[in-house]
């Protein structure tokens, strides 16, 4: 499997080079090439995941190594999907290196046998794990878009027109894309949490066990619920929404990485 993952990694790296080339030269040919490689990497990794799923019946998220690779895949997937609609070309220059870096980090970790208790061999894990990863990837993307928004907003406010001003998409496009990311992430996270609770009830007989990952996931969910509510109710948009999206991503990174590394709670027993 590793050969295919290394192939995917090479494709992501080449994609990143293309995206950066476009950013620096402003030539869309660079972007086309970068995007083609990036999509190639995504397809390659998708095939790896499917063959794993078909072979073992598990989504490959049993170890930190697998989880990281899976996270890279989810991010690439969400970006590719949103790109179909929004075509914010400069974003690739942020997404491709992150996907590549995450996958590379995964490949550097030693291969260890995944803890695969039979209770994970259930359709529920699929409907719990996949939405949570996709949702988190969408939130991460929202944060990247938010960062781009802050840079561009500052350039316009301070009347400093330079590199970013010329290359970055319009503020409104970034704002709408960030909102779309948050809505997408929220929907997936909600599905993931609900299926998680239902599954916990059926497996352990209780909805909620106070596991740190559960707690922080709920915190994340509440945070984004607040963001969406404020936007719909009083029109929190632009800078404030961008900042909140960045905070949310920080919480997610902590939930994902921090808790995985600290090996806490029952999520820790199959993510370490």
């Amino acid at each position, binding site marked *: 499997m590793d050969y295919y993952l290394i192939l995917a990694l090479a494709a992501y790296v080449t994609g990143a080079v293309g995206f950066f080339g476009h950013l620096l030269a*402003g030539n869309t040919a660079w972007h086309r090439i970068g995007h083609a490689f990036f999509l190639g990497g995504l397809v390659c990794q998708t095939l790896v995941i499917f063959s794993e799923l078909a072979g073992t019946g598990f989504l490959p998220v049993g170890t930190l190594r697998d989880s990281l690779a899976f996270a890279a895949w989810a991010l690439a997937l969400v970006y590719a999907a949103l790109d179909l609609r929004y075509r914010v070309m400069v974003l690739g220059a942020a997404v491709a290196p992150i996907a590549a870096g995450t996958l590379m980090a995964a490949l550097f970790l030693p291969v260890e046998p995944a803890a695969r208790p039979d209770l994970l061999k259930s359709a529920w894990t699929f409907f719990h794990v996949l939405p949570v990863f996709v949702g988190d990837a969408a939130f991460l993307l929202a944060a990247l878009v938010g960062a781009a928004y802050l840079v*561009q907003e500052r350039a*316009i*406010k301070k*009347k400093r*027109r330079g590199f970013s*001003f010329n290359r970055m*998409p*319009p*503020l*409104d*496009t970034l704002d709408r894309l960030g909102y779309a990311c948050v809505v997408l992430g929220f929907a997936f996270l909600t599905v993931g949490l609900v299926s998680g609770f239902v599954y916990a009830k059926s497996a352990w007989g209780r909805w909620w066990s106070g596991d740190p990952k559960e707690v922080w996931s709920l915190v994340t969910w509440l945070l984004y619920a607040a963001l969406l509510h404020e936007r719909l109710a*009083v*029109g*929190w*948009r*632009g*800078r*404030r929404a961008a900042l909140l999206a960045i905070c949310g991503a920080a919480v997610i990174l902590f939930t994902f990485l921090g808790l995985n590394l600290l090996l806490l709670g029952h999520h820790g027993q199959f993510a370490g």
Partner: protein
Amino acid sequence: MELLLIGLNHRTAPLALRERLAFSDDEAAFALDALRREEALAEAVLFSTCNRVEVLAAAEDAAAAESAVLSVLCRVKGVRRADFEGALYRHAGDEACRHVFRVAASLDSLVVGEPQILGQVKKSYRAAVAAGASGVVVNRLLHRAFSTAKRVRKETGIGGHAVSVSYAAVELAKKIFGELSGKKVLLVGAGEMAELAVEHLMHNRAERLFVVNRTLARAVALASRFGGEAVAFEGIEAALKIVDIVISSTGASDFVIRRDQVKAVMRPRRNRPLFFIDIAVPRDIDPAVNNLENVYLYDVDDLAAVVEQNKAERAKEAARAEIIVEESVMAFRRWFDALDAVPTIKAIRERMEAVRAAEMEKSRGALKDLSPEEVEAVERLTRSILAKLLHGPTVFLKKGAHGRARKRDIIGAARDMFSLDEEEGNGNGE
């Protein structure tokens, strides 16, 4: 045959002189007809825009051609040569070619990179073709000029940035809102620059215009010009709740729009972004509104700074464009040099010999049973068929007894017929 360009432009002639020499469409047609009749000129095309009057000609004798061109200009426009002699520039050969390419690519324009000039050059070209004044050389040169201009536009950022204050405002609005369709504009006051900005915005599909003026009649007049709506001066605050772009240009000595007013409308607006363009001096809009979230304010100095930066940007891109022009000049030179009977005949022979050799090669299998002598006989046979076939065209081209101007046309046609200039690419496509 020589290329020659004579003319004057915004750098050499003041507006008053350019006005006197500018050709209307009818005058241009008349002048082209006169140029066609001139014995000294083989081909000619006349460019006349508000910034230039130029004649590009192909002729055997440059000095005779020059005086022919000038006498036509004087005759048609009723001016004396002494009136504009001092403003004239003359370019010959590659220089003339380079000049036309630069003009078409908007490198010689008052505002470098402005897009209208290419259309004007094309129009001049069509008029020359219609009048029968142009010919194979000038046509070819202009087609090259069009493709060069297209390449310059595509490969450099020469037309990329706004270089007028009113257009810079539109560019900024696009950086904030993306698409301007569906956006509403409020114009406070009046003034040329503000109205120009409004025109650009409406042209970019802004949805609706509201006009506020101390004199309601003026507001109504302006609003009707753009199909907008006049609003009483007291209605500014209500208007701020619904519009997205505000252009202010009043003669008021005090702020017309204050920070607290804007702050108050942001909540009912649900924080939708609001873009203020303050063209007035003294300023109409409290600079502090720029510190409000989702509010952006640019005043006249900010816009002027944008324009300055963009101009510098264009100058950089122009340097890259010059390289593209230089490539085109060299390509045209190669074609021009080949546009003579001897090189054309040579090229046709080479092309045909290549076809013959290739066909021989293909038939090698079928001829494998022949003895070397027999193969040699087939070779000779095919060669002599070729020589017989090419004899007529060769004599025809060599004689050149068709009048000087027609000779170029015939050679040009021959080159096209045998596709000798294929590598030049898109020579015929506009």
